[in-house]
């Protein structure tokens, strides 16, 4: 909380921009970075403009928004539960969303209905976990975490059941959705909007979150109204996760790995970590999605596979190296 904030954020923002320029340049028709910048400035050839502005940029921006949403949600959940293992996915939010989305697919419904159903599923899972963990009044982080883990296992069973009884032609689409896929995400603006809005809301709360990370009693003794703050964080993290899942299915590891990597490098001042998570999470998912498009081109991989394959070893290495 005494480190400079502007420098790391600038570095991350520049890295994010470079990743985006690269991402929209790579594909069946390669476009040089200089030409990409020309298009961004409103120039460039018609072919390039169509390719970038209508086809590639929406997907890249969607990937950025999804990664940012997941990373900030993870960072918030970790402070809320004072547990570095907390992550929206561990708490069963994505399971609820997946069940919602798969139900819509089973019913043969498409597009917007799947998104709406996924959002409803995520919010239902949120309320269920919070309601059950609340129980008769004692609300402890370990109880919330345990409730989430058990509820997530329940969702997992329901998902397996649905996959088992689904007609074979629906299976590939369902599996791609379950592993996370941004190729159908065509409207990045709602996600980016939610990301910016929530960041603008939580960064002023950053110092309160720093104090809350020291435990609820200490926080209360330093003048924080603990319970309302905890509710606010939980609701915001759920909203972020539901938005991300709705955009791109369930993409694991971003919410767990990104905040951790940043904490190891930047310390644990939430005023820095939360916006840094938005930038780094977005950048990571843009890079992962670019890889997913090119590794076995013209076929595409689900981006969730890439984030897991990249995230797990990186995370283990950093953890092994840390003090």
């Amino acid at each position: 909380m005494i480190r400079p904030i502007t420098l790391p954020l600038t570095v991350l923002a520049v890295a994010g921009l470079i990743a985006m320029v690269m991402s929209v340049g790579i594909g069946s028709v390669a476009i040089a970075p200089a030409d990409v910048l020309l298009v961004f400035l409103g120039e460039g050839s018609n072919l390039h403009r169509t390719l970038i502005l209508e086809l590639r940029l929406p997907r890249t921006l969607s990937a950025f928004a999804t990664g940012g949403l997941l990373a900030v949600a993870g960072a918030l959940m970790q402070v809320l539960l004072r547990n570095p293992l907390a992550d929206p996915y561990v708490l069963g939010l994505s399971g609820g969303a997946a069940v919602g989305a798969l139900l819509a697919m089973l019913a043969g419904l498409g597009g917007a209905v799947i998104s709406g159903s996924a959002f409803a599923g995520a919010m239902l899972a949120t309320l269920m976990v919070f309601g059950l963990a609340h129980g008769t009044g004692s609300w402890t982080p370990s109880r919330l975490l345990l409730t989430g883990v058990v509820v997530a296992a329940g969702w997992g069973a329901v998902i397996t059941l649905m996959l088992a009884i689904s007609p074979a032609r629906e299976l590939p689409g369902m599996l791609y959705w379950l592993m996370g896929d941004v190729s159908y995400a065509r409207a990045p603006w709602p996600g980016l909007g939610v990301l910016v809005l929530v960041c603008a809301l939580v960064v002023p709360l950053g110092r309160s979150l720093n104090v809350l990370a020291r435990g609820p009693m200490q926080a209360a003794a330093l003048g924080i109204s603990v319970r309302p703050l905890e509710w606010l964080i939980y609701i915001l993290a759920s909203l972020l996760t539901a938005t991300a899942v709705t955009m791109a299915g369930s993409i694991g590891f971003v919410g767990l790995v990104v905040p951790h990597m940043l904490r190891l490098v930047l310390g644990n001042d939430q005023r820095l970590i939360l916006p840094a998570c938005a930038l780094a999470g977005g950048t990571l998912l843009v890079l992962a999605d670019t890889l997913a498009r090119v590794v076995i081109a013209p076929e595409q991989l689900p981006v969730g596979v890439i984030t897991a394959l990249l995230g797990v070893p990186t995370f283990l290495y950093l953890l092994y190296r840390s003090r």
Partner: protein
Amino acid sequence: MSGNQRPPMQTLSTRELVIDIPGRADGYPLDLAIKSGQVWGVLGPNGAGKTTLLHTLAGLRSPRAGALFLNDVPTAKLKRRALSQQLGLVFQDRQDGFPATVLETALIGRHPWLAPWQMEGADDLAMAERSLEALDVLHLKNRLVSTLSGGERQRVAIATLMTQSPHTWLLDEPTNHLDLHHQVAVMKLLTDRAAAGNAIFMCLHDLNLAARWCDHILLMYPNGETCWGPAERMLVPNALERLYNQQLATVEVDGAPFFVPKRD
């Protein structure tokens, strides 16, 4: 209000206060007045409710009955932030979920004094460093708290309260884990703060530290009975033997009574 200025007179008082101890049927009401310049010691056996009393005084727990007043204003009427500018507490046990350095830990004491969007400034940093120096832990300022010894952590916790600089200091066994020299240094620091106008109210397990440094004593018996008053009236062998259910021998050292437990 900075740590160096003389704080205005203030009294934290309780009226018919009964603390809420689960399983204790009847409570004895407390009518305390903790005033500027006083050093209070709370003595009692394990489970008598010392920690519960401190948490109740700090507004972290609701009492079973009665009310708390800060200069005759009910503390229930004060905002939590305003209260934490007047009242601070050093907890007996601490949890560290995420790694933090000693300096960062002390700096969170400034939280009640800063607006939500405000960053800690040079003043806040200087205050935190002064407090760390007063507790002899400034040389550890860049170390992670999780790597410190128990006594060093205890001193960092007191430095955090000093950085918070409330008027009334509540401390739960502040000499826990401290070596002899630092026990004396901490007691001296606390009595100096009282001489400068703060009020000090602490739970202690060491009778002799209480006898040496406290001017007011509150005795808490296991059945909920309490009595309080000036130290010389409270620290009498009969009352203390009943308090701890332990025979004591008394000698006098440096003009203060010194209590030694008898072997049987």
